[in-house]
């Protein structure tokens, strides 16, 4: 082994410039691969972070417009979800899969008044399950609870960003708890303050839905129904469940059971599945792109090894004459090819990882305003150990492939022909 390395080193030392130029192509290929994968990871991480604000095994149902006539009604009828739909969702019909059921309705805008300060906002009437659905984090106090619902209490959970506008100087959020906020001639009690961050879609206040229904005098209006579920592992299962659920709700609204547009179902679970599928396709595409770039480098190594074999024909002939087997000669070329590829590959990988870190420190920190939301396009655009191992395997295979044809050529050298060349 030591002898083999000495031989390779000798050969490389004699052709420094040539080896360096060839190596550059390999290093460049790997550099591109790492940077592409890093950028891809950044993009995917950003996606995932967006997705993380919602619990994944949930569905949200909205009313829609019918697309076909049914039961004597024309097509194009607006379907308004109502309390009965909540009952259907909670019923034994779906209890096998459905866990916690909730609903929301929006109302507003209202002007909240507290401490003599004003803030304009929308109210979300919701169920206690909202906290889990949207992963709401409380800074202090509590969220809407079943008792609020039952007693139709005027409890209100403030957003931190509005709360800060309503605070007296020097006071903290806790001082707001138990205070009453007034709007529309009613006074509501602040029971909690929840955390808002830049990426929140809209800043709004949470109240118990039955209370809001009473307040708006729309006792049977439901904006959306949401629920968490379990036991639907595949896309197929999900589709079947959705069809069954749709049929039940449609029937209650006298729409055709298979009408696809009477209600809208947003299944976050299948959406995640699709997104995962998408990211895995993206990842594969990046590998393919990177490897295609790398092929340029590999061809270069192969080319250089062919020249080496040509130059060393006589030497290989001598070696064979004094007893080197074809495999010994092949080994020499393959080892040199793999060494060059691996060495420069690792140089490229190192530089690629440096570039990823630079990316992380620059574009990885910036965010873009998009419809009032602030979105980070890149989150942690770096590659992990798995990629480093993957790249190592790729390099060894690539080096072997690059050296294979020159090595076979070298192994086939006939000593007499080599020795006759001058």
């Amino acid at each position, binding site marked *: 082994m*030591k*002898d083999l390395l000495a031989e390779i080193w*000798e050969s490389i030392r*004699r052709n420094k410039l040539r080896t360096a130029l060839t190596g550059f192509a390999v290093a460049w290929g790997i550099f591109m691969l790492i940077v592409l994968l890093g950028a891809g990871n950044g993009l995917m991480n950003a996606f995932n972070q967006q997705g993380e604000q919602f619990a994944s095994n949930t569905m949200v149902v909205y009313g829609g417009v019918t697309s076909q006539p049914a039961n004597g009604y024309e097509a194009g009828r607006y379907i308004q979800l109502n309390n009965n739909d909540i009952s259907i969702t909670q019923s034994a019909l779906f209890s096998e899969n459905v866990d916690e059921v909730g609903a929301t309705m929006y109302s507003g805008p209202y002007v909240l008044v507290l401490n003599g300060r004003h803030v304009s906002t929308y109210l979300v009437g919701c169920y206690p399950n909202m906290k889990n659905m949207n992963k709401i984090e409380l800074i202090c106090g509590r969220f809407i609870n079943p008792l609020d619902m039952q007693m139709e209490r005027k409890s209100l959970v403030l957003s931190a960003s509005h709360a800060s506008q309503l605070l007296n100087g020097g006071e903290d959020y806790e001082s707001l708890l138990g205070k009453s906020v007034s709007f529309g001639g009613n006074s509501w009690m602040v029971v909690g303050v929840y955390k808002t961050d830049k990426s929140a879609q809209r800043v709004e206040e949470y109240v118990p839905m039955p209370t809001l229904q009473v307040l708006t005098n729309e006792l049977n209006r439901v904006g959306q129904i949401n629920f968490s579920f379990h036991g639907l592992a595949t896309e197929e299962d999900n589709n079947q469940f959705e069809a069954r659920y749709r049929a039940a709700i449609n029937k209650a609204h006298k729409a055709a059971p298979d009408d696809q547009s009477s209600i809208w179902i947003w299944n976050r679970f299948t959406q995640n599945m699709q997104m995962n599928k998408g990211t895995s396709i993206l990842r594969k595409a990046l590998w393919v792109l990177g490897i295609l770039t790398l092929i340029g480098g590999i061809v270069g190594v192969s080319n250089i090894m062919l020249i080496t074999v040509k130059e060393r024909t*006589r*030497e290989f*002939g*001598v*070696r*064979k*004459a*004094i*007893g*080197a*087997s*074809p*495999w*010994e000669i092949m080994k020499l070329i393959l080892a040199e090819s793999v060494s060059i590829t691996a060495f420069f590959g690792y140089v490229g990988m190192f530089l690629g990882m440096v570039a990823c870190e630079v990316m992380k420190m620059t574009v990885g920190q910036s965010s873009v305003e998009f419809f009032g939301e602030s979105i980070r396009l890149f989150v942690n655009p770096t590659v992990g150990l798995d990629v480093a191992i993957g790249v190592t395997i790729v390099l060894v295979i690539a080096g072997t492939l690059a050296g294979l044809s020159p090595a076979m050529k070298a*192994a086939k050298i*006939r*000593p*007499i022909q080599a*020795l006759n060349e*001058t």
Partner: protein
Amino acid sequence: MLIELHNIHKTYDNGQPLHVLKGIDLGIEQGEFVSIMGASGSGKSTLLNILGILDNYDEGEYWLDGKLIKNLSEKEAAHYRNQMIGFVFQSFNLINFKTAVENVELPLYYQGFGRKKRNELAMRYLEHFGLAEWATHYPNELSGGQKQRVAIARALITNPRILLADEPTGALDSKTSVEVMNLLTDLNRTEKVTIIVVTHESGVANCTDKIIHIKDGIIGETTMNEQHKASVFGTSTIMK
């Protein structure tokens, strides 16, 4: 018999068939010092290649030390070359980027010897040929005679059954040629090495004990030359 050739035929087919060896019968005993003489195109190089297991033959049988050398795979041929044959070439064929001692070591590397053992043996051979102080020099730092002596050391290090020398003095001046031929003679006399020299120089052939003339692919006369009087230019000259 160390070497036995029976009716060896060899035809090259480069577009049009060229019958180079037309039935060679030859026997060489252990410890002989033989030269094969012939003009260019006579087939002497082809014969040497066959003797050295560097080339195949079409017909006949070649027995080397009791083994039939026929239709060997590349790997087997390499193995037999390594074990049984030492080569000395006209243009030395040392590897330029290896030092003298590394060149001498190389056949042992292919026998799987360890680095230390190889080095020790190679140094002993170099010392024997008076090249110890040149051991770490590269071939381009050596004179022609020194290079040929390194090559002979390399050929002998595996203790081969035969030493094949292809025009060993072809690239040397007359003085160095004499030295090299004396060295080969000495090896034959003292170490009992079987040596076959291929040459077209009668002076070189004259140093050997038996001269086999080859012409147009068949063996002509074989001159016994114990008295070394075959050279037309005198007994102790090497024609240049």
